[in-house]
């Protein structure tokens, strides 16, 4: 979507007459990439479903305050990321454990998850990712699985492209090391 198309699209989203159809289009465009983004973070399908719902409801509720300073795409990714992070923190708090422990728990459940391809290398990769610091995990997943461009990631995470590249390469090195030794 070009910048001009996007401006017109945002206007459609704000106009009460065209709003519903525009929002349906928004859903069709972004529900899959945003689902993958959220699922990669929370791991479990049902949790991802909850977070994705909250994300789109929040997007809808806050359309008026979308100033167009950033792209619609990165704005939505930011909301989804924040929703997923909040969800994971609450999940850990509810169980009275740290975020790392909660992630480990979710990871262990993945083996028996019907909505996960129980391939050994895929599981191993997830376990390797879980050993990284939170931000590095996010950068790796967005680059490797979601195949986002550094420029896009930079807008979403408000981090410079250079820092993201460095972060990704460190993550790759650590993961390769983990896969090699485990």
């Amino acid at each position, binding site marked *: 979507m070009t910048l001009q198309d996007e401006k017109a699209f945002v206007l459609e989203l704000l106009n009460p007459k065209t709003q*519903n159809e525009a*929002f*349906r289009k928004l*859903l*069709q465009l972004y*529900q*899959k990439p945003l*689902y*993958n983004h959220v*699922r*990669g973070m929370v791991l479990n*399908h049902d949790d991802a*479903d909850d977070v*994705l*719902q909250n994300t*789109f*409801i929040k997007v*809808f509720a806050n359309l008026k305050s979308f100033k167009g300073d950033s792209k619609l795409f990165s704005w939505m990714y930011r909301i989804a990321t924040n929703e997923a992070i909040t969800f994971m923190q609450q999940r850990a708090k509810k169980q009275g454990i740290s975020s790392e422990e909660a992630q480990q728990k979710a990871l262990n459940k993945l083996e028996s998850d019907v*909505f*996960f*391809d*129980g*391939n050994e*290398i*895929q*599981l191993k*990769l*997830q376990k390797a990712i879980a050993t990284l610091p939170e931000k590095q995990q996010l950068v790796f*997943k967005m680059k*490797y*699985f979601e195949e986002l461009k550094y420029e896009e990631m930079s807008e979403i995470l408000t981090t410079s492209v250079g820092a993201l590249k460095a972060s990704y390469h460190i993550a*790759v090195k650590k*993961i*390769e090391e983990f*896969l*090699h030794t485990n």
Partner: protein
Amino acid sequence: MKRFDLENNDKINSGFKTPERYFEQFEAKIMQQITTEKPVKEVKVVSLFYRKQVWISSIAALFLLAIAIPVYFNMASESNLESTTIESYLAQQQSVNTNELIQHLSDEDITELESTLGVSTTESDEIEAYLSETENLDYILNE
């Protein structure tokens, strides 16, 4: 064992799957939520305003009570302590003796008492005579 090379090896996909027709259902679910949410939101706005009113009126009620309760009790205590009431109470009260009563009398009370009881200076001799005959004299003189 061969080293893993994430960049050059075949890509490992995330392995995440979704239930069948998940996205179609998701789209329908969200569309339903946002279309039914609109009127609900308006109601919510009204209810929030209403709640605000309740808050304001309950605070106002508290203020009223804070002012009204002391005023009520002041009035009540004033009206309850009519001098006739005190008098009749004291008259019935056996344990309060004359000396105790005297201690609570001010100079003004005494002059008033003198005038109402018709005690004048000319009669002071008679009083003295009376007092000299009573057993309490020592005590009164020491006062």
